[in-house]
């Protein structure tokens, strides 16, 4: 059955709530409204007010209370109305949740999912366009995922709900209604951890995730058409822990690596990926490791500015050409 990225998330929520009555949903306007993006639509009708909880505007409370319920065996799926507001719950995530098991001598766990609609390209400006993932990928105790397709969106959310650790789930707003995919009937999951090779190639590797996967694939097709270049495209999917083996395998295979993400260049995950390759696949490299990312600015509002800041297919094509020619 064909489903949009948004619908896939919604389906995963319905199915997981049906499967396990420890699962409940909590956030601002997730009930009758079905969330600002309609991701939680229908849940209130199906599962009632005890399992679909509208909260006050209190991000710290949302995460903190989620933790309190989770240590007692519930499986909360929490929503930040926009991923940008995750900054308001920062302490609870990086300190209370991430250290919980460690502090309790391994005798407690914190099985919660924090859904955060993130990403730019929708005229969201400074506070509705952020890509906060790299704030969390440096925090042991957390897992971080960022699906790029409806299949992964559904499968990774199911895995996240079933995982006994706090998982931050970044869903890209621009993908909600812009991509569709046939999903298999019945239950399926996508494991947290492994990256996925989206396109096999031999000349150059693109390592990416989330919103820029599609631009990367487009760029790969363009350069193949125009010059026969075979670009390999690796979709990280899980950002913590990183799939080091897959990263190193593609780097060793092609010898040329282009890292692409919508998050800013400086301090984005690309730096970590580049460092892993520069340490562990150095001998295989045939050229510099390049990055195409958002420029080091806030995501400005006005279209010419936003366009200038964000990565896009053209910028990726350009970088592929340069790197291939190296």
């Amino acid at each position, binding site marked *: 059955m064909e489903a949009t990225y948004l619908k896939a998330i919604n389906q995963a929520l319905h199915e997981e709530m049906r499967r396990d009555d420890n699962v409940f949903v909590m956030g601002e306007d997730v009930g009758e409204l079905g969330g600002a993006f309609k991701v939680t639509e229908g849940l209130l009708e199906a599962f009632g007010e005890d399992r679909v909880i509208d909260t006050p*505007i209190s991000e*710290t409370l949302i995460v903190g209370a989620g933790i309190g319920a989770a240590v007692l065996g519930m499986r909360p799926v929490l929503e930040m109305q926009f991923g940008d507001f995750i900054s308001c719950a920062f302490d609870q995530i990086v300190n209370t949740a991430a250290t919980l098991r460690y502090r309790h001598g391994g005798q407690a766990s914190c099985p919660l999912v924090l859904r955060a609609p993130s990403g730019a390209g929708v005229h969201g400006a400074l506070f509705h366009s952020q890509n906060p993932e790299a704030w969390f990928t440096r925090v042991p105790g957390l897992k971080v995922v960022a699906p790029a397709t409806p299949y992964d969106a559904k499968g990774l959310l199911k895995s996240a709900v079933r995982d006994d650790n706090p998982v931050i789930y970044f869903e890209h707003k621009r993908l909600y209604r812009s991509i569709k995919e046939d999903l298999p009937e019945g239950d399926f999951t996508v494991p947290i951890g492994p990256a996925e090779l989206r396109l096999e190639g031999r000349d150059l590797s693109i390592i990416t995730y989330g919103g820029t996967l599609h631009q990367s694939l487009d760029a790969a097709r363009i350069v193949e058409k125009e010059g026969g270049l075979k670009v390999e495209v690796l979709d990280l999917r899980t950002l913590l822990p990183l799939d080091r083996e897959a990263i190193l395998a593609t780097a060793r295979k092609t010898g040329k690596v282009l890292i692409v993400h919508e998050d800013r260049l400086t301090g984005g995950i690309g730096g970590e990926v580049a460092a892993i390759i520069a340490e562990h696949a150095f001998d295989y490299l045939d050229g510099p490791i390049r990055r195409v990312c958002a*420029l080091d600015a806030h995501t400005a509002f006005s279209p010419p500015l936003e366009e200038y800041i964000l990565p896009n297919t053209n910028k990726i094509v350009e970088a592929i050409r340069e790197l291939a020619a190296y």
Partner: protein
Amino acid sequence: MAEVEGASAPAASGASRVEYELQLYYWMKLIRGFEERVSRLHRQNKILGGVYSGAGQEAIVTGICAPLQEGDLVAPLHRDLGVFLMRGVDPGRLMAQLMGKETGLSRGKDSFLHGGDLEHGIFGSTSMLGSSLPVAAGAALKFQIRKEKHIAVAFFGEGTASRGDVHEAMNFAGVRKLPVVFVCENNRYAYSTPLEKQMAIEDVASRATAYGFKGHVVSGNDLLAVVELSERVMSRTREGGGPALIECKTYRYRGHSEHDPALYRDKEELVEWESRDPIPQYEFYLQKRGHDLKRIREEVDARVNATVQGAVEFAEQSPLPRPEEALEDLYAPSGSSATAGNPRGS
């Protein structure tokens, strides 16, 4: 417990008071007219991104801003477009801001009301609701340290009242007796979330006692009442009387944003509140005061139309920013105003 404060005639009187009252009318109408145009421009895709209408709540901004003085600092929230107009921001620049034009307050950097204008004493708030209240407290701290007779004013919704930032700001304001006035626009909804899911009490104002200062409740649709109260409260705060909280009971006419049909609300409720619209209420008052309402309304409507039309034209004719400007204004030139301090010693 705070009680609803009754409206009474404004303190001052005479010719200047009459003019002032007519000016209030103009402001309220300008805000409504401007925002209606904004909604329309949004439907026409000439304004992108989130647009949040303050329709129905104009009397609050008008009444709160009326007694403000130059040098005061105001932190408006997403529904307080009127603050920009009342503080003297050029309507054309404001419209340009909403359209992401080079001539806008943020030069196209941020959307809607997140561009500030310190020249007119407006701090541009982020989207993170409540985060402007600590900032307002800090501005008030500066006034206090410097012994300046200014005040800071921070607007917030009843939903925003649930944020921790609001608590930290009010507590600090209470401890230091800061010259800051917190203004809660209680329009009974935060997006789709009704009051009773937001708090277990009826009046946000009653929280002021938890911080050692006074909370006031007023009908936010009654311009006279708001003005009278804000004049009184602000002059007390300005004279060193410490912080205050004013809660204005009101109602949001439109959806949360222009994208929101607000199906979660009862239609009856909307009709009921529309019958308390601040504009006819105030028009009735003007009539009672002996004004020729028909004439005034025509005059004001014409002025409003001209102003709004002028603003739209200015904004539409303004250029978009150049792409490379995306990298400007991230940093102040290092130490550019470091010498603007009061250097002492060597």
